């Protein structure tokens, strides 16, 4: 908005400039010569307005281009040279045109009027431009609010210029002198604030030094030439005394400004180099730190970092010693072989207190006894630690060959850079870690999904069996598995199993186990035979260190006969008449042995179930549930609870036991899957209703 506004304003003021100029010509041609005070005043005011309108249009241009101070100075130089030429060589031309200037200006005709106005306008243009340059230079790189200083000076310029008329009266001329002196003092005061000089490079400073001397001379010469009596004064003063005075003040400003600029630049030159270097260092550090934050891959990052290290320190070689467990390996070697780098590591680690290094350090390498084994002759090493959370993660190394050595500046540059590099490495590591974590979480999700699909979605419905089951997966996914196989309406097979280990591998083995039992249960009835067969099948697929504990049972729902075989699984618990007993036939875990040892070990137990007999199948996730002190929930605890709750229905028993387990282990994340299946035999139902009918129907068939 502001830009558009100022654009319009500068365009308008440019139009205004032309209109006013045309008016000035007409006005002066008509009324001049005249001694009339009003006419002279109007002429002066119009001229002042022309100056203002030109200044406005030029300032619009300045804002758009945003010139640098050096080019502004050059422009002023060129302009002052032009002015110098105009002042020195216009006299003969003008004289050729209008004859004797001295006489003609007092009583000008049309030609004289036009020529003197044109001549004045050249200087007016100069004044407008130079003034704007000074203004821009003044405000350049100013950090404080200095508007007041400049505006005050400007007001005094105007006052001094107007006060020129007081000089015609002897008694009032002191006013003009006072304003003049104040203006000069303000010029000196304001010229002392040249802050932009510090920001240019050494070469430019030397250039500026020469330039300011030349411009200073031009300004002084011009100032002298403008003095009363000269040709220039005669023409300008015939048009405007105010403009003449204003030009005079501006030239004084220029002379003072450029002499101060000269000395300031002169004093800046000795420190220019150091300043340049520092500035370059800061900017390159900023650039580098930005760069390394963009690289996230560890390998790319380490390459970038050692590349930057060579550039930053001017070293011949750079590399990174990265810590793995307790030794270091050399990575991202830049201009150095792996062997050399490793040799130098050995040397570095033989230094005293290398593990306490907390800032960059220069280490001369001449004393290195294996110097001869190196393929290049290195003179000094520059080492900076790479840290994360105060621990050394590695070192950033740079080496120089031959006679050149590292200096303090190199050291401090690497010191700063190594801090940025440490952060970049840590960021890369965190990113990698979070990607890995996400990957693991996805893997766990897959495992959980596998497990969820494998387990039965509902319990089988047999009239004389009450069944309840619950499965709670651990965070890490264990290998628990249970299933029911309704073989026919009179026979229910069931299994509980636990694959050793955890995670996705356990989940897949569990899926395999399901497949095996699902198929075997359809063709083999005897639990012992099923387990033997399952072991044989697993032989081909199980890794040697993986095994599966399982218990397989078969209930005849007509008479409550239970056959059960156990392959290394926790015993099946039986609650009968308020007492708890173990059903624990002998048997090795599946996958522990694939020869006769397994089949020989396996026994099958027969249990004749009585009314309200309750079978409890579980995995060690319950008994080994941990509390905050890493204590087990315990076998005894579990058994006591089962007895305590045994009068409830199977669903309630399950809920109550699980609740106790979760209260116990609330301070500890769930360690293993938890599976609890409870089956209760209801003898009485068989005597009435459907079941009996089924049995008789079955008997009729056979």
């Amino acid at each position: 908005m502001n830009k558009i506004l100022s654009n319009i304003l500068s365009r308008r003021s440019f139009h205004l400039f032309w209109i006013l100029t045309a008016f000035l010509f007409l006005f002066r041609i008509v009324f001049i010569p005249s001694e009339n005070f009003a006419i002279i005043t109007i002429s002066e005011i119009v001229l002042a307005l022309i100056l203002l309108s030109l200044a406005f249009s030029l300032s619009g241009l300045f804002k758009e281009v945003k010139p640098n101070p050096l080019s502004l100075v050059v422009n002023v130089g060129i302009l002052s040279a032009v002015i110098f030429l105009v002042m020195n060589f216009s006299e003969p031309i003008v004289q050729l045109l209008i004859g004797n200037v001295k006489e003609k200006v007092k009583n000008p005709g049309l030609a004289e009027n036009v020529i003197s106005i044109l001549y004045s306008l050249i200087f007016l243009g100069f004044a407008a431009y130079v003034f704007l340059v000074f203004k821009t230079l003044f405000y350049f790189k100013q950090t404080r609010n200095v508007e007041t200083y400049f505006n005050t000076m400007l007001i005094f310029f105007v006052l001094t210029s107007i006060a020129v008329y007081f000089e015609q009266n002897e008694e009032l001329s002191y006013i003009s002198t006072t304003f003049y002196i104040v203006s000069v003092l303000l010029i000196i005061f304001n010229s002392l604030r040249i802050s932009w000089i510090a920001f240019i490079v050494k070469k430019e400073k030397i250039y500026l030094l020469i330039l300011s001397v030349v411009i200073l001379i031009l300004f002084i010469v011009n100032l002298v030439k403008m003095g009363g009596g000269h040709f220039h004064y005669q023409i300008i003063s015939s048009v405007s005394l105010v403009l003449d005075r204003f030009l005079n003040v501006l030239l004084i400003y220029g002379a003072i400004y450029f002499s101060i600029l000269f000395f300031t630049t002169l004093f800046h030159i000795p420190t220019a180099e150091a300043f340049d270097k520092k500035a370059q260092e800061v900017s390159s550090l900023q650039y580098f730190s930005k760069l390394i934050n963009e690289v996230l891959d560890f390998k790319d990052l380490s390459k970038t970092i050692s590349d930057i290290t060579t550039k930053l320190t001017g070293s011949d070689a750079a590399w990174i010693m990265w810590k793995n467990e307790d030794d270091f390996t050399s990575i991202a070697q830049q201009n150095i072989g792996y062997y050399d780098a490793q040799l130098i590591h050995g040397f570095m680690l033989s230094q005293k207190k290398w593990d306490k290094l907390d800032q960059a350090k220069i280490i001369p390498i001449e004393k290195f006894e294996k110097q001869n084994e190196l393929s290049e002759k290195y003179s000094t090493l520059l080492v900076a630690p790479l840290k994360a959370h105060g621990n050394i993660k590695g070192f950033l190394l740079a080496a120089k060959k031959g006679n050149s050595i590292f200096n303090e500046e190199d050291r401090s540059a690497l010191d700063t850079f190594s801090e940025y590099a440490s952060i970049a490495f840590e960021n890369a590591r965190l990113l990698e870690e979070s990607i890995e974590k996400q990957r693991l979480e996805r893997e766990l999700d897959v495992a959980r999904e596998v497990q969820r699909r494998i387990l039965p979605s509902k319990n089988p419905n047999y009239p004389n069996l009450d069944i309840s089951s619950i499965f709670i997966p651990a965070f890490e996914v264990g290998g628990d598995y249970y299933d029911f196989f309704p073989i026919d309406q009179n026979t229910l097979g069931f299994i509980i199993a636990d694959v050793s280990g955890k995670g996705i591998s356990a989940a897949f083995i569990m899926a395999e186990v399901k497949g095996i039992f699902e198929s075997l249960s359809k063709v083999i009835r005897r639990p012992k035979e099923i387990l033997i067969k399952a072991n044989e099948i697993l032989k081909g697929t199980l890794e040697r260190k993986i095994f599966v504990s399982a218990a397989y049972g078969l209930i005849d729902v007509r008479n409550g006969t239970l056959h059960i075989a156990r392959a290394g699984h926790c015993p099946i618990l039986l609650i009968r008449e308020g007492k708890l007993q173990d059903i624990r036939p002998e048997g090795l875990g599946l996958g522990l042995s694939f020869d006769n040892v397994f089949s020989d070990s396996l026994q099958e137990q027969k249990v004749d179930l009585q009314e309200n007999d309750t079978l409890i199948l579980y995995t060690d996730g319950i008994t080994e549930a941990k509390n905050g002190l890493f204590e087990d929930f315990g076998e005894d605890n579990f058994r006591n609870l089962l007895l305590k709750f045994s009068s409830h229905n199977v669903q309630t028993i399950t809920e109550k036991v699980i609740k106790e387990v979760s209260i116990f282990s609330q301070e500890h994340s769930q360690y293993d899957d938890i599976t609890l299946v409870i089956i209760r035999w209801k003898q009485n139902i068989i005597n009435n209703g459907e079941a009996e009918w089924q049995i008789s129907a079955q008997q009729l068939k056979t």
Partner: protein
Amino acid sequence: MADFSTTVKDIGDVSVIYLNGFLDAHTAPMLENNFSELINKNRYSIVVNFEELAYISSAGLGVFMAFIEKVRENNGDIKLTTMNDKVYNIFDLLGFPLLYEIYKSEDEAINKFKSLK
């Protein structure tokens, strides 16, 4: 996570691995390393002392299964000793006593190796 550590001591031709703490899926690789190193050194007479072992998970049990064949092929053995009741119960449930010799004391196991020579 709970701590686990092992120490290996050579007593004559017999190497004894002492277990300490909690042996589970996360700590099992440490014990696997011990076994691998012994096998690499052709030391196949191995006694594992469970005296200071507080807990063993199924993954921990798997470690013994992973090496037993290799050791026995070389006329060696892995003998287990001084288990507390809890740890023994876990081995027993799975039927490990059928596969491994389990002794009450370390000396018994070492002597058993010596008597074979």
